[in-house]
């Protein structure tokens, strides 16, 4: 809170006007429309619509396809989060031991942040391409017949790898920052108390890193749920047989390709509730920090 403030009354509104206008026109109004549409059903020609209450939601929740999408989203988000955070933590711990070479390694590890999810998808789609890709060729040697076009598991693995790959750099940077924020004296004290490197990690470093870990957990789940649209659309398009049809992709597909506005809007509303709860979690607990 500032002690000294300007007394103008009109000026602040002028300063806020662009932001508020855009927020209202492109955020609040469409969100309101989504809520409204979720209670309506359009006729086959999209001319008339009638109020149907919670019918759209009921239809969704009893639809095996939507249940499948929920499950796929959960599996996908958890896998991406674990894989990307695990690799990033390992790399961060390794870089934390480095003195001179830390900067070089960091540069070589952070660049994927700049790669668009869609491009990441294309790259891995190519690497795993069953006929000309590098990986199926390698996997064939160990006797695994990779085919993400027909195999549900392979398709899921592909999108998880592509999504996790892109997110490693982000997690890496935050883990490195978190590790550097731990006072050296703590680890020195533990070393004097006779704890070896592995023990020190589990007794001292990892617990002290928990605020970073928790924060990244939320960020990664949000990333996997909402920012990976490009990965899916550029590769599997939700297939095969709905195996990678995550919720944001289904909203788009049902709304634009399937032209089922009511159902798409209901899905939007459910997603909104999800983002709101994730944001609340982030602000409630991350602000307070899981700390000692």
């Amino acid at each position, binding site marked *: 809170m500032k002690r000294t403030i300007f007394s103008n009354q009109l000026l602040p*509104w002028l300063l806020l006007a662009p932001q508020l206008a855009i927020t209202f026109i492109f955020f609040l109004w469409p969100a309101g429309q989504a809520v409204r549409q979720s209670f309506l059903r359009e006729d086959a020609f999209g001319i008339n619509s009638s109020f149907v209450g919670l019918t759209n939601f009921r239809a969704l929740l009893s639809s095996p396809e939507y249940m499948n999408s929920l499950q796929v989203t959960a599996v996908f988000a958890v896998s991406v989060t674990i894989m990307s955070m695990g690799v990033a933590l390992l790399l961060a711990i390794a870089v934390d031991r480095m003195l001179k070479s830390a900067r070089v390694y960091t540069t070589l590890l952070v*660049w994927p942040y700049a790669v668009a999810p869609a491009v990441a998808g294309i790259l891995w789609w190519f690497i795993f391409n069953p006929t000309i890709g590098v990986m199926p060729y390698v996997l064939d040697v160990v006797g695994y017949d990779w085919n993400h076009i027909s195999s549900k598991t392979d398709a899921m693995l592909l999108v998880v790898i592509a999504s996790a790959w892109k997110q490693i750099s982000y997690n890496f940077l935050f883990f490195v920052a978190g590790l550097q924020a731990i006072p050296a004296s703590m680890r020195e004290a533990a070393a004097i108390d006779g704890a070896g490197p592995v023990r020190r990690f589990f007794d001292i470093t990892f617990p002290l890193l928990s605020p970073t870990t928790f924060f990244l957990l939320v960020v990664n789940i949000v990333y996997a749920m909402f920012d990976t649209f490009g990965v899916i659309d550029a590769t599997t398009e939700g297939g095969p047989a709905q195996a990678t049809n995550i919720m944001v992709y289904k909203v788009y597909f049902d709304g634009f390709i399937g032209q089922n*506005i009511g159902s798409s809007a209901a899905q939007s509303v459910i997603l909104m509730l999800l983002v709101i709860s994730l944001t609340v979690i982030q602000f409630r607990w991350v602000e307070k920090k899981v700390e000692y």
Partner: protein
Amino acid sequence: MIENRPGLNAMAHLVLILGVVVVGLPLWVAFVASTHTATDFMSGTVPMWPGPHLVENYSLMLERGVSTSGTPPVARMMLNSLIMALLIACGKIAISITSAFAIVYFRFPLRGLAFWCIFVTLMLPVEVRIVPTFQVVAGLGLLNSYAGLSVPLIASATATFLFRQVFLTMPDELVEAARIDGAGPMKFFRDILLPLSRTNMAALFVILFIYGWNQYLWPLLVTTDSQYYTIVAGIKRMADAVDGLPQWHLVMATAVLAMLPPVAVVIGMQRLFVKGLVETEK
């Protein structure tokens, strides 16, 4: 580091080198592929080293593109991406910094409500309200325009919060001294606040440029005229089109070109990039 254990150090290096290789693999494969011809992939073995067709493939893509895919030359798409990224980055910074200024340095009725309106945008990513937002933009006649590509994306709670944080940490005495020195609100904003926020703006610009350049879903929806295609959205159209006739070398050349500007920004401005990344998460 507490004790010197050569074994552990060697292991750390090994982990890092492996990490660098795995992280870099897609880029290498893409680059290699972009230097070969279509027939090189048909032989059954995948080339692992660059071929001789680099200049040929890249100049073909930049100047002409793949006409069967309905996409314009890559140079054109890169220009569109650049315009979109710059509009988004500059637009976000401009409207966020003025909003933060209004919220921090003024007291007016409904200030709390204005703050919440901005805050709520955090919870409404475009993917969630995709259909109605598209309808609004279509209704405003903004399809196939740079405004349609950028304006709906430039409201940002994150950037506003960042500047709010920056302003809150500036000493009160600075604005008091400026007032005694005869500076009104806009003069204070221009002469004191803007210059003092320069590095924050630069750091934010790096993050937002990448954000803007990498937009995918939105450009895919609002552009049907190929003259407005952006490279990230265009690459998918291209990959779709070449599925029948595998021209992966050209798709990979496009992918490399699509990665080049944002990756160059991250590596060239690593310090600002890290600062921006950490600050926007506060």
